[in-house]
């Protein structure tokens, strides 16, 4: 007699094995990323590498480290904008900055900074508010290529009108054109903006707490995690923030489903900015 057990779909089995392989061989852990997004991104990678199946892609990545680097781009790269969601930056400027002014020195963590658009946005905002000199921005990501791009600070000139409009809507006090020079189809952002920025490799999945932060900004990263991993990351933010420190999330992210939600209070609800409760 045979028992009919609904079989897991073949491609889902292959994806689990592929992610396990990437973790065991390279220590990049995507096993708790949300499935729907990772499946779409892996399907794009599979097609890009001309593989007929996820198993073939697994074979390729296990035996060729160069494939991993490209695969990471498929799995992690986020295209953002400078001052994306201007209302968020306006809230940082108008509501959070008055608190930040009261500290003698400032530590800010941009977690999952990708190619750096948000890092430059915050650096410009801090300069406009006269806080740059006493601030240190830690910009982290797991993708070394993204970090290189972030450090270079060169963006397509076609993106500048959007960046400029966002900057203005965010309450920008200067002209964005003060901060970049156009050359060879790219807008190269002023090196001095990076003088208070430290770019480094850090994983929210496998690495530990970071400094005593006054503000952690982590936007549109948590939506790619399952609930368990979201809790890990939010736990890291809680432990990295000093008393009364601020946590800014993406406009569709919240602490609603997190087991750490008790550690934070709503600070600016619509802007998804939270404040860590004092101990």
């Amino acid at each position, binding site marked *: 007699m045979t028992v009919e057990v609904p079989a897991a779909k073949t491609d889902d089995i292959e994806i689990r094995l592929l992610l396990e392989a990437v973790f065991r061989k390279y220590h990049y852990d995507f096993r708790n990323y949300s*499935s*729907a997004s990772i499946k*779409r991104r892996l399907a794009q990678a599979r097609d890009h590498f001309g593989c007929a199946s996820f198993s073939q892609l697994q074979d390729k990545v296990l035996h060729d480290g160069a494939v991993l680097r490209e695969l990471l781009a498929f799995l992690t790269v*986020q295209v953002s904008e400078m001052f994306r969601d201007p209302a968020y930056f306006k809230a940082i400027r108008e509501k959070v900055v008055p608190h930040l002014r009261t500290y003698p020195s400032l530590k800010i963590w941009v977690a999952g900074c990708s190619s750096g658009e948000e890092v430059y946005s915050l650096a410009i905002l801090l300069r406009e508010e006269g806080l740059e000199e006493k601030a240190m921005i830690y910009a982290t990501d797991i993708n070394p290529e993204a970090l290189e791009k972030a450090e270079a600070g060169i963006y397509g000139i076609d993106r500048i009108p959007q960046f400029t409009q966002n900057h203005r809507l965010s309450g920008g006090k200067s002209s964005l054109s003060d901060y970049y020079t156009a050359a060879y189809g790219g807008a190269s952002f002023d090196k001095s903006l990076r003088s208070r920025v430290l770019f480094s490799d850090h994983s929210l999945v496998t690495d530990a707490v970071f400094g005593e932060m006054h503000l952690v900004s982590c936007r549109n990263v948590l*939506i*790619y995690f399952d*609930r368990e991993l979201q809790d890990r990351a939010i736990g890291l933010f809680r432990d990295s923030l000093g008393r009364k420190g601020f946590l800014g999330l993406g406009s*569709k*992210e919240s602490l609603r*489903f997190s087991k750490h939600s008790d550690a934070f209070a709503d600070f600016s609800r619509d802007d998804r900015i939270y404040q860590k409760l004092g101990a």
Partner: protein
Amino acid sequence: MAQAIEKPTAIVIGASAGALGALSVILPELPAGFALPVLIVVHVPPDRNNLMAELLQAKCQIRVCEGEDKDSIRPGVVYLAPPDYHLQVEPSLDISLSNDEAVLFSRPSIDVLFETAADAYGDGLIGVVLTGGNNDGARGLRAIIDAGGRGLVQRPDTAFTTAMPAAALQACPEAEVLSLEEIAAYLKKAGAR
């Protein structure tokens, strides 16, 4: 009347230009105790403050809200994709949002919702393509039918804009072609307790 699906588990709907008018015919027909979840992508501009859910809720008995990341999908609730995010169904039947690039210039994308829902729900899924001016939804509806689900398409000659239902029909000749009123009746019956 179109043939009913055997054991429906969820409904997904895609609409673009003319969406509010079309959904205002369909959704008010669904009762508060509707037995299925309804997930909807409407092409909207990326502004944070979108009134679509409020406008529709005012006309409906069934609960209408914007889908939130990692929310469990419940029967009797209409989930709209938030502006500027893809709305996806996880295999665990939770919602997930994504910020991945636009598909066919659209974020939210109907194809992304339909393909992830087809993957999660399989043969119990009903996919509906309504009025719209591009070909988003065609590929997704194909995925739904290939996974054993059912496809409904608004009769192009009754649509505010015909391109989207026409493209869906071209990709899915076996889909049922219905007027808005017939789609409403079909869905109401599928989700009757």
